[in-house]
């Protein structure tokens, strides 16, 4: 075999190999077409069951929302497992035409129609869809939406609130009639007068920080009620009271509270408007400015009452280092450990709200305090009874009813 013949054979072999490879590749590409040629799915999925529709009540109810619920098709998550979605329809009457409403994904058991006309009777239909076929349509109706005047899911809150308010009012009346209401000793509140006295003896000011909450925060309002009592004591002792604030409205309210307190004890001239200071809305700029006051003006007593966040420890530790006697009070549970660590006394949660009544000893306010205490007794009794009943029998009907109420 000569060289030319060998080259021809090699070329022929290479060409055949390329053709063979191309044929294999074509055959591979052609495989899906072979699969597509399989017969189409003509079996519809099983329909849903238990379709129901009800007027949906939310916090802004205009009667235009109806909520549909159903039990999944047996082919959704089981059976043929081929349901891909649910098609929903709505009609304005039993004999009226169905209008498409929307779709719900497979696995969903809830759909909210948010475009219903209030007061109009609607019928709803639903069918499972497997990508090729719809199941038999299941329908429900009539149902109409209406703008409700009571949020029934909040019935339990209403009942407990009325019971609580009733207790507060009963004890307030009792207090007004002269009943002797015992209130437990709160060392943190007793310490306030002691702290102010110490500052007076040392000839140094008292620093009162009402937190960085806005005026619509109930802790800030509670703080202003305590500020009123503190300002009366400082006014009586003629001790300077510095009130740095992070909110302009709080500053304005604090000015009024301190000015009135000076007037109430007969020392209106002792009021210094420059001591009620707006520092900054920015959290850490405020903390830095208050720390500066602590280090420059050296108050002997620091009182932190109100809503505090991450700045709590920055303030309390600086006050500790400056050697001031410190009393804090907040209902911010996450900040309580910091105050407990760095302050001499801490008012925890409810003690902040009790302060005004405790300090003034006004019968009307003490009545509210006793009402809260009895509500706590009632809450603890209900919880203990629930736990005991549940432990005795987890299927207890009363516990089930009470839990869902």
């Amino acid at each position: 075999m000569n060289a030319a013949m060998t080259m021809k054979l090699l070329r022929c072999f290479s060409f055949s190999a390329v053709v063979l490879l191309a044929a294999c590749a074509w055959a591979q590409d052609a495989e899906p077409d072979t699969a597509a040629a399989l017969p189409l799915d003509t079996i519809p999925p099983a329909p849903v069951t238990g379709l129901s529709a009800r007027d949906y009540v939310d916090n802004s109810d205009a009667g235009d929302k109806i909520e549909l619920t159903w039990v999944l098709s047996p082919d959704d998550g089981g059976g043929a497992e081929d349901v891909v979605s649910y098609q929903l329809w709505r009609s304005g009457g039993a004999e009226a035409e169905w209008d498409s409403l929307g779709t719900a994904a497979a696995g969903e058991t809830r759909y909210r129609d948010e475009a219903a006309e209030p007061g109009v009777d609607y019928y709803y239909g639903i069918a499972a869809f497997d990508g090729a076929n719809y199941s038999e349509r299941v329908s429900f109706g009539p149902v109409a939406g209406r703008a409700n005047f009571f949020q029934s899911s909040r019935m339990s809150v209403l009942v407990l609130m009325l019971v609580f308010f009733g207790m507060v009012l009963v004890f307030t009346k009792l207090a007004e009639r002269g009943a002797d209401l015992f209130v437990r000793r709160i060392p943190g509140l007793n310490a306030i007068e002691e702290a102010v006295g110490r500052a007076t003896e040392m000839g140094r000011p008292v620093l009162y920080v009402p937190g960085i909450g806005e005026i619509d925060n109930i802790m800030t309002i509670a703080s202003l009620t305590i500020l009123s009592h503190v300002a009366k004591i400082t006014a009586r002792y003629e001790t300077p009271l510095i009130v740095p604030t992070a909110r302009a409205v709080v500053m304005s309210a604090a000015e009024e509270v301190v000015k009135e307190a000076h007037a109430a004890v007969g020392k209106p001239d002792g009021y210094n408007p420059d001591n009620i200071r707006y520092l900054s809305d920015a959290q850490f700029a405020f903390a830095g400015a208050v720390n500066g006051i602590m280090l420059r003006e050296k108050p002997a007593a620091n009182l932190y009452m109100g809503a505090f966040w991450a700045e709590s420890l920055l303030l309390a530790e600086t006050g500790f280092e400056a050697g001031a006697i410190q009393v804090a009070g907040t209902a911010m549970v996450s900040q309580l450990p910091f105050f407990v660590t760095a302050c001499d006394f801490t008012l925890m949660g409810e003690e902040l709200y009790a302060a005004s009544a405790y300090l003034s000893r006004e019968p009307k306010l003490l009545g509210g305090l006793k009402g809260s205490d009895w509500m706590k007794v009632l809450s603890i009794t209900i919880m203990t009874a629930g736990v005991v009943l549940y432990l005795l029998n987890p299927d207890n009907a009363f516990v089930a009813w009470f839990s869902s109420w």
Partner: protein
Amino acid sequence: MRREIPLAITFLIGIFMLVDFFVPHHVVSSSAEEMKQWGTIVIAASILLGVGNLIRVHFHKIRRRREGWGYSITTLAIMGVMFFFGGPWGTIEEGSAFNWMFLNMQVPLQSTMFSLLAFFIASAAYRAFRLRSAEASLLLIAAIIVMLGRVPLGQLLTRSWPEAIQLPNMTEVIMAYPNMAAFRGILMGAALGVMAMGLRIILGIERSYLGGEK
């Protein structure tokens, strides 16, 4: 009348907000929403009061040469600079001088203050965990378990121990039971305190926040 009008407004708005909580009708909820927006606008506008107070307090301090009056000059000067650049050239526009100063001066300063917290936590923790009493000892033990249980080292140290006393599991138990019980107790007490205080304010029994009881 100086007391009666604010008390009447407080009563009416308080009752209306309470009604809004229980009445879902859109007429009530949209009115309540409108009212909340008014509140937001009033609070935002009140910043002028704050600025006025800031200028007055620092101006008095400078005029009377009180201790630290130099800081007051700095405060007023910086406020003036921010006003100057914020007014005509905008505040949040990218590339504006105000925005540049905010991002490169105020934000780092605030971050510095925040990061100081780590040192304050260390000093506070040192004091809190000193073995002074039975309670402090309990706190120390719980803290060691929780701190070690939250880092890989805790898992590494105790992985050969029985599962129940491995540090991550003990941490979970401490956080989920004694810690959560105390947390909820304080929270429930505070919630009742808020309700009682709210009722006292709505009914006008508590009025010292207005500047006096009478």
